[in-house]
C-alpha cells in the first residue's frame, strides 16, 4: 500500500510551486485522505494475514489443530452458540449474566471507592489512621479472594459481584483520594470566600474537580470488574461466559475457549465505547485535547 502513497507525497511540493493556495490545500487534503485509507487497508491486511496464516498452518498441521484450533472452527463455534444456544442455555443469557455481575460489581465498587476516596481525601485524620491498612489490603493480590467469596456466597452471582467489587474498589479509591487531595487550593479558598460551607466545598468543588481523576480509573476498573466476574464464574457458576470457558476447557474444546474470548472482547469494547460517550457529555467544560 505504501509505495502508492509515497510518490504522491513527493509530487505534492512541485505542484504547489505556482503558489496557488487552493491547489496546495487540495493536495494536502488528498494526501491526508490517502494516508487514512492506507492505514485502514494495512490494518485489514494484517488481520487477514494473521488469521489466514493461523488457518493455513492449522490445516496443514504445522501447528496442532487440536490444541490451537483455527479461525474457521472458532467462527463455527460462535455461530453455533448464537443460533442454537450453548450447553447451559442461550448465548444471550450467558452474556447477560456476566455483564450483570460485572456491572453490579463495578457500580458498587465505584460508589464505595469514590465515597471512601473523597471522605479520606477531605478528612486527613481518617486518612492518616487508615492509610497503612489500605496499603496492606492493596498489596494482597485480590484475585485470590475469589475462592473465599465462593465459599461465603455460593455459586450464584453474589460471589462474582464480590470479586468484581474488591478488584474495582482500589483503583477507584486511590484516584478519588488523589483527586480530592489535589484540588486547586485557590478554588477552595474562593468557594469559602464566596460563602460555601464545608459540605458545599466538598460537593461543589472537591467532587467536580476530582471527576477527571475518577473517570480515568473508571476505564481501567471496568476491565477489572469483567475479570472479577469471569474468574468467579470460571471457579464455579451455573451461568456466564466464564462457565462457558471452563466447560469448553473441560471438554478440550479449544475453539470454544477462543470463541468465548472473542465474545468477551466485543462486550468489553462496547462498554468502553459507552463510557467514553458518557465522559464526553460530562466533561463539556473541559478544553478539548487536554485529556484523552
Amino acid at each position, binding site marked *: 500500500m505504501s509505495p502508492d502513497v509515497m510518490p504522491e507525497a513527493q509530487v505534492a511540493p512541485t505542484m504547489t510551486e505556482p503558489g496557488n493556495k487552493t491547489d496546495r490545500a487540495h493536495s494536502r487534503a488528498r494526501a491526508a485522505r490517502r494516508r487514512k485509507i492506507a492505514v485502514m487497508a494495512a490494518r485489514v491486511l494484517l488481520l487477514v494475514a494473521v488469521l489466514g496464516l493461523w488457518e493455513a498452518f492449522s490445516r496443514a498441521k504445522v501447528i496442532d489443530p487440536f490444541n490451537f484450533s483455527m479461525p474457521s472452527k472458532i467462527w463455527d463455534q460462535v455461530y453455533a452458540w448464537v443460533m442454537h444456544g450453548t450447553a447451559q442455555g442461550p448465548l444471550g443469557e450467558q452474556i447477560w449474566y456476566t455483564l450483570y455481575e460485572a456491572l453490579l460489581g463495578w457500580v458498587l465498587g465505584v460508589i464505595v471507592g469514590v465515597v471512601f476516596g473523597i471522605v479520606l481525601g477531605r478528612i486527613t485524620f481518617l486518612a492518616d489512621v487508615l492509610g497503612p491498612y489500605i496499603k496492606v489490603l492493596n498489596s494482597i493480590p485480590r484475585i485470590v479472594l475469589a475462592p473465599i467469596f465462593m465459599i461465603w456466597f455460593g455459586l450464584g452471582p453474589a460471589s462474582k459481584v464480590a470479586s468484581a467489587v474488591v478488584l474495582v474498589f482500589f483503583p477507584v479509591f486511590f484516584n478519588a483520594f488523589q483527586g480530592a487531595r489535589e484540588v486547586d487550593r485557590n*478554588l477552595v479558598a*474562593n*468557594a469559602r470566600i464566596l*460563602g460555601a460551607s464545608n459540605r*458545599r466545598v466538598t460537593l*461543589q468543588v472537591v467532587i*467536580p474537580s476530582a471527576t477527571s481523576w475518577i473517570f480515568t480509573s473508571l476505564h481501567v476498573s471496568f476491565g477489572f470488574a469483567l475479570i472479577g466476574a469471569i474468574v468467579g464464574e470460571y471457579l464455579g457458576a451455573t451461568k456466564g461466559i466464564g462457565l462457558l470457558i471452563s466447560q469448553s476447557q473441560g471438554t478440550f474444546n479449544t475453539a470454544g475457549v477462543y470463541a468465548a474470548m472473542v465474545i468477551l472482547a466485543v462486550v468489553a469494547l462496547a462498554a468502553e465505547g459507552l463510557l467514553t460517550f458518557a465522559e464526553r457529555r460530562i466533561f463539556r*467544560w*473541559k478544553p478539548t485535547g487536554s485529556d484523552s
Partner: protein
Amino acid sequence: MSADISPAIQLRGASKIFRTPSGGLHTAVRELDLTVGRGEFVAVVGPTGCGKSTTLTLVSGLEEPTEGDVLVAGEPVRGVGDKVGFVFQQDATFPWRTVLSNVMAGPRFRGVPKAEAKQKAREWLARVGLAAFEDRYPHQLSGGQRKRVALAATFVNDPEILLMDEPFSALDVQTRALMSDELLELWSGTGASVVFVTHDLEESIALADKVVVMTAGPATVKQVFDIDLPRPRKVESVRLEPRFIEIYREIWESLGEEVRITRERGAAHVA
C-alpha cells in the same frame, strides 16, 4: 468602640508565622499595624514575596494571625465572614461551571433563591460586558474575560470589604489598564473598602487613595502615602500628570530601598 464609626479594617500588631514543610518557622508578616477607613481604596506595595498576600488572608479570615488582632468593622475576625470579597491572583473561576453559574455561585452559597441569584448575576455580567457570554465555560474565554467573571462573581455578593491580590498581574499591559479603569468604575458605586495588593507602584498610585509601602520580608508597614490625585481617574492619562510623577518619585525612594534589600538577599541566597 461603636461599630458605626469604627474603621472598616484594623490590624493591630498582627504577626503570622507559618510552619514550613521542612519543620522550620517562616515569619510572613510581623507586628503589622494598618487601618483602612470605610470606602477607602488602599494599595499595598512591597517587594515580591515579602508577605503582602498574607495580610489579605488574615483580613479575609482564611488564616488566623499568630499574634495580634485583626478587626473588620470593629469586630475581631473569626473565620470567613460574609462581608468580604476576594479576587485572587490566579484564576479561581470554577472551570466546570458556565460563566453565569460562576457568578451565581456566591449568592447560591449564601442561600439566595435561584431566580433571584440568576437575575443578580445577569446584572453584574452586563456591567462587566459579558452578558453575551453567560453560557460559555471559562476555558472558552480570554484571560481578561475570566478576570471580569471573577470581578462580577465578587461584586455580586455586595462585599463591604474587597481584597485583591495582584488581580491583574497575569494580564497584558493594555488589558490591565482597561481592567483597572473598569475596577474603579465598578467600585465607585459600592462604597466598599478596598485593599489592593500589587508589586506595581504605578498601578497602586493610579488606583488608590492611600499607598502602603511594606518592608522586605518579614513584612511590616514601612510608610503610608496619601494620594491626592482627583477622582474620577483614568489610569492611562493620570500616569502622565506631573503630580503623579512627583508622587511616584517620593514613594519609590521608600520602596526602592526594600526592593534592593530583597534582591541582595536573593543574590546572597543563590551564592
